[in-house]
């Protein structure tokens, strides 16, 4: 996963086998400063108090719609603190849910893991019990392409911080 920063792009690479999360920013570094990456074990990843729950109820509604050419099903995850409504495509079968431990207290991931749903949420809205939006994302684009294994490793030019 990656997202743009003021300088460069931040990359997040979860390594399920090693139980490690690697992060780095590919932006410019000051003269004399080496490019570096951070490595964090799963137990160092903090959960958010706002969304920390012990139980989640998942409803696969059967309602479908097309997002970006992919058939998606509406799935609702309900908790004592609010709920998440997400549109999940099963047109391809990544075992995204297995990475739930990297997304602590994330209701989407908890729901996918609870039901062992092989798919990817393309859009999602999470609200608290009062109806306030806690987080949300909308679909922009999806591209099917050949992807190299190297996409999932930190470039050799970076050393561990």
């Amino acid at each position, binding site marked *: 996963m990656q997202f743009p920063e003021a300088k460069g792009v931040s990359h997040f690479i979860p390594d399920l086998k090693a139980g490690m999360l690697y992060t780095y920013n590919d932006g410019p570094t000051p003269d004399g400063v080496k490019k570096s990456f951070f490595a964090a074990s799963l137990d160092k990843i903090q959960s958010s108090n706002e969304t920390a729950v012990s139980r989640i109820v998942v409803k696969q509604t059967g309602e479908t719609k097309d997002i970006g050419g992919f058939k998606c099903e509406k799935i609702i995850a309900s908790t004592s603190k609010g709920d998440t409504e997400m549109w999940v495509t099963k047109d*391809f079968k990544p075992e995204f849910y297995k990475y739930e431990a990297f997304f602590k207290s994330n209701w989407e991931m908890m729901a996918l893991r609870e039901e062992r749903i092989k798919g990817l949420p393309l859009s999602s809205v999470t609200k608290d019990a009062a109806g306030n939006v806690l987080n949300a994302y909308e679909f922009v684009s999806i591209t099917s392409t050949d992807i190299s294994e190297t996409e999932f490793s930190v470039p050799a030019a970076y050393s561990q911080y």
Partner: protein
Amino acid sequence: MKRNLVLLFMAAVVTLNAQKGVILEQKMTAKNLPGKTISVTWFSH
């Protein structure tokens, strides 16, 4: 010539290691990274 051969070899290795996948872009619309577009890269299988 030698350099071209090396580059060709590297391209072949990359192609062999490549697998079908998707690159998903999503725009964050709430307080988590508002307005930012995140990109998720994933193998299809």
